[in-house]
């Protein structure tokens, strides 16, 4: 993904609260801010308030939040959601928590989520989310029982602040202290230690397959080298013979 440039080249650098030109980085400091982003969607029932457009069938919310329910606003200053062109306005900028947008609609599309950080010298980072309204692999039958359940599609990501700017170290420390003081419960039932274990297991299984293939190819390599050497020797002896 977009490898970041030196922070000082960032266009927003002058807008932020840190207008000093110091771009000094701390040494050996790393902070991690786990987030969950995604969408929840549900059918608009008869008792619900009607949508602005009668063709809209779903009410959905796209969101970014701390993975354990913590307040991420000390770190993330602003989140902008770029919706489909047909929404007015297509870009929604949320400056304070909760960082989310609720809309009604009928179609699925990709939402570009841009995170801007409290440290304005840092470039905003993009995230992509495919809005999901209908259950996957199932008939989009509006009367079926499952169609009435809310559809959740979310992703876990970790924002890593590696050797952040000195001015930004305090907010990060405060954030860490806040998280440590209130070890909140995970807001998601998906991203659990069990998932970590199963993901690790899955990857290790693939790794074993790759390692086995490496062995297989190593022997192929040895055979190829052997053949090549023998051919070279043959050629050499043929040449010597002909002198």
């Amino acid at each position, binding site marked *: 993904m977009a490898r970041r440039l030196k*922070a000082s080249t960032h266009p927003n650098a002058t807008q932020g609260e840190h207008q000093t030109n110091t771009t000094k980085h701390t040494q050996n400091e790393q902070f991690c801010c786990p987030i969950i982003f995604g969408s929840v969607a549900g059918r608009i029932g008869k008792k619900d308030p009607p949508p602005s457009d009668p063709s809209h069938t779903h009410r959905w919310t796209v969101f970014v939040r701390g993975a354990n329910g913590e307040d991420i606003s000390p770190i993330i200053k602003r989140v902008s959601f770029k919706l489909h062109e047909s929404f007015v306005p297509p870009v929604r900028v949320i400056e304070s928590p909760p960082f989310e947008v609720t809309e009604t609609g009928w179609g699925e599309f990709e939402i570009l989520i841009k995170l801007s950080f409290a440290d304005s010298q840092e470039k905003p980072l993009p995230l992509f989310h495919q809005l999901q309204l209908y259950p996957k692999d199932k008939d989009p039958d509006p009367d079926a029982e499952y169609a009435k359940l809310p559809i959740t599609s979310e992703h876990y*990501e970790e924002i*890593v602040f590696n050797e952040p700017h000195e001015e930004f170290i305090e907010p990060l420390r405060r954030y860490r202290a806040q998280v440590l003081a209130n070890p909140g419960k995970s807001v998601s039932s998906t991203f659990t230690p069990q998932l970590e274990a199963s993901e690790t297991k899955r990857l290790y299984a693939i*790794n074993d397959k790759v390692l086995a293939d490496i062995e297989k190819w190593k022997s192929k390599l040895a055979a*190829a080298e052997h053949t090549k050497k023998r*051919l070279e020797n043959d050629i050499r002896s043929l*040449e010597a013979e*002909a002198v």
Partner: protein
Amino acid sequence: MEMADVCGLPPLIPSGLWSAKSAAEKARKWEMSQRVRSDGLVLRHWSPCGSTHTTQEAASADLSLTYSDSEYDSLLASPEWSRADTDLLIQLAQDFNHNFIVVHDRFESADGTTSRSVEDLKERYCHIASKIIPLRTAATGAPFDASIFTFNKDRETQRKKNLEALHARSVEAVQEEEMLFYELKRRELYGADWQAERDHLVQIMANHELPVPMQLPPIPGSSSSGSTESRKKKRAADAASGEHTKRKSAAVASALESVALAKRDTPQGVFIRGQRLLTPRASNLASKFKELLEEYNLLNPPLLPNTTVCDVADEVRSNVMVLLDIRKTVERLEHETISLRERKRMLLAGEVLAGGPSGGGAAPARADSGSTSDEYDEVEARKKKKAGGGGSGGGGSGSGIFKKARFH
């Protein structure tokens, strides 16, 4: 010249390449110069400005070699040349302005049997000149340049022979030489790279265990302690002692440098962990790498991209890179094997051609589909036959195409 040394023949392809520098040099100025011969004929011709060439030429044109009987006996007597022949040579050289091709044409030995080549004539003439002229110039004190009259007959003969052989070679030989020439160039160009690549690969294969992933400071709220345990166990099983692992992985870390571990040098600033999984640094590998990832069902990012999972994912990915590296090398080796096989086939064919009747029974050129063990046997059989059957055909087989094209 070097090529001539190696394969016994000068190459058709010039080994020195045309350079822009030589083209950028200023053109020399030429002028019309004239020369009046002793018989009054005026000759005009173009020559480079300020060149002393014309005067030298004139000097050699006016050169008259005369010697007394005593001088001849003491300095010029030779078992191969009679006095009459020598006189005739000097006379003809004078008459035809030292044009030895013409001299050779007109030259008739006094006994009518000895045949002399152009080189023989030149050698004799230069020998006489280098003896006589110092005698004459010593009296007048004029400088004498001995280099004008040094003539290396062997070299000249070889040179002409080479040119003739070059002229007489067959189309196939020319094509083969061309092929070999470019093969050689290719090796010169890439040989070092290939060797480095191979060494590097050997090093990786010797211990393709990966460096221990950098331990990040504990992350609040994230639950990563559980499975690090199991990973550590796995590592412990791999290496007997922890120290050993460390040392080994340090070596591997440097070895893997070129496989491009993009992540190890974490940049300053903010990034999203799941978006920074290992990818090959070389952009030409990117698509191949992607294909491999797809093959192993790795294309989608991990569902829970935290430290633990990302480290495992990176481990898998770097193994995939190692695999990619090996696969690429195998591919290259297979290509090389094909060209080697072709070369061997040509060698065998060339020898059969040159071997004449004695080689008639041997199999003709083998298609590259022949198995390697087959070829091997053939070479062995050839060796035995040669050793046992004595050198009957060996001496005569030197003129085959094969010999002309020999390179090493």
